[in-house]
């Protein structure tokens, strides 16, 4: 008897709509796990660097020994430009230039200056790991020189003995030369600016999407759908009406966000650093593009939700159908937060681009770095995706499927499947 009940429960619960979201989420975790695995390898690897030693003094020798021991040095010469080219070619992290008077300055009770030319690849959380390793190495150089000074019984200022070097950072990132910022500072700044949008987009898509899917479920549960479909109104108008109704609510939320965000960006500073000073501030047209990207992505998400909503049999099943949307929104959010679009593997690139809500998530960072093709391409893609999904939804609205659901194979043997009456 109990076996019979277990069998019935299993058959009722083990259905595609409950299993699919779990499969998708498992794939997401698997992909993130794969990415974390690569990061572990990155941490273990020695950073690839170039060194330009114009000093050849006692302390530059100390610095050189620390660096050569702990890093893979691909350039050791005196030409900065040549060194940069070599580091870039070898996919390196940075070129360290030790000026001619480095050791003498330290002896003269002045900090020795190290010029660091960073090659930054991406601005995601995981992209700055190799530069983080390099930061640790520079700290080790500082400590080793400090130790040498103490061993030599230096009579210098104790503050200088403890911190004998200073650094001048220049970061090359996506065609921009940003002076005075290291990749970790820049990454933190970009992250603090662009982290809000993915979360807002994720919330918007999940909330507005859930309302559209629930609306479809409620139409069926409340038995209002049949009446609606016999009214003198085009199917496309029903689909668009449902979408735009939810999109308007989403837009109001987005507009409130954008007003606050614009103000936030104007006055945003990290450690007394103004983004505008580094050519990273957004202009009016950038905000407009972000707004358009957000709106089109919202429409695309809602169009997808309408299609999913047609599978809802009632309010309860509609709730289950929200999971795929939530999973897609989570995939976009995680990937965009952890990695830069340019630094993710090709398969993930295709996945991220294919999810229309990824584009507003990536828009701020892309616009700060003048990557207009990615943003405009994303808007165009999301618009095409919306039109395609609306067409699919209208086709479903014009078919029997909306009212009859699917007919199981056994119907062929003379029994009816679920979802329709004769």
């Amino acid at each position, binding site marked *: 008897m109990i076996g019979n009940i277990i069998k019935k429960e299993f058959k009722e619960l083990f259905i595609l709509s409950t299993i699919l979201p779990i499969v998708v989420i498992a794939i997401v975790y698997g992909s993130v796990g794969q990415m974390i695995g690569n990061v572990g390898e990155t941490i273990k690897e020695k950073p690839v660097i170039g060194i330009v030693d114009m000093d050849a003094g006692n302390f530059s020798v100390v610095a050189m020994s620390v660096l050569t021991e702990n890093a893979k040095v691909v350039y050791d010469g005196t030409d900065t430009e040549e060194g940069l080219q070599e580091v870039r070619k070898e996919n390196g992290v940075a070129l360290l230039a030790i000026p001619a008077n480095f050791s003498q300055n330290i002896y003269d009770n002045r900090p020795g200056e190290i010029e660091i030319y960073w090659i930054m690849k991406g601005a995601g959380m995981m992209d700055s790991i190799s530069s983080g390793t390099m930061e640790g190495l520079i700290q080790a150089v500082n400590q080793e020189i400090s130790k040498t000074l103490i061993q030599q019984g230096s009579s210098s200022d104790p503050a200088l003995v403890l911190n004998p070097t200073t650094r001048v950072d220049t970061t090359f990132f996506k065609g921009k030369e940003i002076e005075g910022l290291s990749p970790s500072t820049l990454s933190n700044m970009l992250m603090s600016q662009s982290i809000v949008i993915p979360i807002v987009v994720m919330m918007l898509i999940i909330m507005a999407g859930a309302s559209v899917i629930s609306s479809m479920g409620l139409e069926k549960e*409340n*038995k*209002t759908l*049949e*009446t609606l*479909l*016999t*009214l*003198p*109104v*085009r199917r496309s108008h029903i689909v668009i009406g449902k979408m735009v109704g939810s999109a308007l609510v989403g837009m109001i939320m987005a507009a409130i966000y954008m007003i606050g965000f614009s103000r936030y960006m104007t006055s945003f500073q990290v450690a007394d650093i103004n983004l505008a000073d580094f050519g990273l501030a957004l202009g009016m047209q950038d905000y407009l593009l972000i707004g358009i990207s957000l709106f089109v992505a919202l429409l695309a998400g809602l169009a997808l939700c309408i299609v999913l909503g047609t599978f809802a049999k009632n309010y309860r099943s509609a709730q289950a159908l929200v999971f795929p949307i939530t999973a897609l929104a989570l995939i976009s959010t995680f990937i965009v937060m952890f990695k830069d679009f340019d630094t993710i593997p090709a398969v993930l690139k295709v996945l991220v681009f294919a999810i229309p809500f990824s584009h507003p998530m990536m828009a701020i960072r892309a616009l700060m770095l003048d990557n207009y093709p990615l943003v405009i391409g994303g808007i165009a893609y999301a618009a095409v995706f919306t039109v395609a999904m609306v067409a699919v939804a209208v086709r479903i609205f014009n*078919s*029997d499927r909306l*009212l*009859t659901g699917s*007919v*199981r*194979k056994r*119907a*062929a043997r*003379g*029994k*009816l*499947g679920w979802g*329709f*009456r*004769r």
Partner: protein
Amino acid sequence: MKAVEVRELVKDYGNFRAIKGISFEVSEKEIFGLIGPNGAGKTTALRTIATLLQITSGSITVFGYELPKQAGEVRKIISYLPEEAGAYKNLTGKEYLNFIAKFFGDGEKFQNMVQRGLEIANLGERINDKVDTYSKGMTRRLLVGRALMVNPRLAILDEPTTGLDVINAQEVRRIINSAVEAGVVVLLSSHNMLEVELLCHRIALINDGRIVASGTAEELKKEYDARNIEEAFVRAIK
């Protein structure tokens, strides 16, 4: 012109044939009833005429408009009341009538429709309460009001009195009769044979997707030598 002409209608759900080639006509100023047991194909036939389902084969015309080609035109002149219809629960009864009437007209025409809906529903002050608070009978009256207020040329009513008590059922039948007097053609389905006998001018007996007999109640009773339609139906399907 015939209000409805159905010719050799076949409707399949996947591999299952729900309607197996039925034909009938409904004339103007007529109440035509499709009667039969649950699963006979009544709802499928009405849904197909109401433009909700695709035709597998055969033809349907409604006041000369051909389905599915002119479905948009048909929707302008019909009103469909599904058996298990509901209304939007967060709207009041009046808001629901307003919502529906806006699809059919504006200005004075809209106002008149809503007024007619209010009169048919006859819910008094409760019309301003949310539909969520209505009893089944009140909801059904609101829906009958909704279906008939738009002055359809053809009202398609699927089991219009199902689930209603005797008083409410009688009231709904009265409303249907007065709509027909005002020129509306009614095509209804029911498994309540007594109701159909009371209400319909002509009847088609449907069983297992086929029309087994049709005519007036008197004609059918005479043909099958039966005391009532129920008896005629049982004899017709034997």
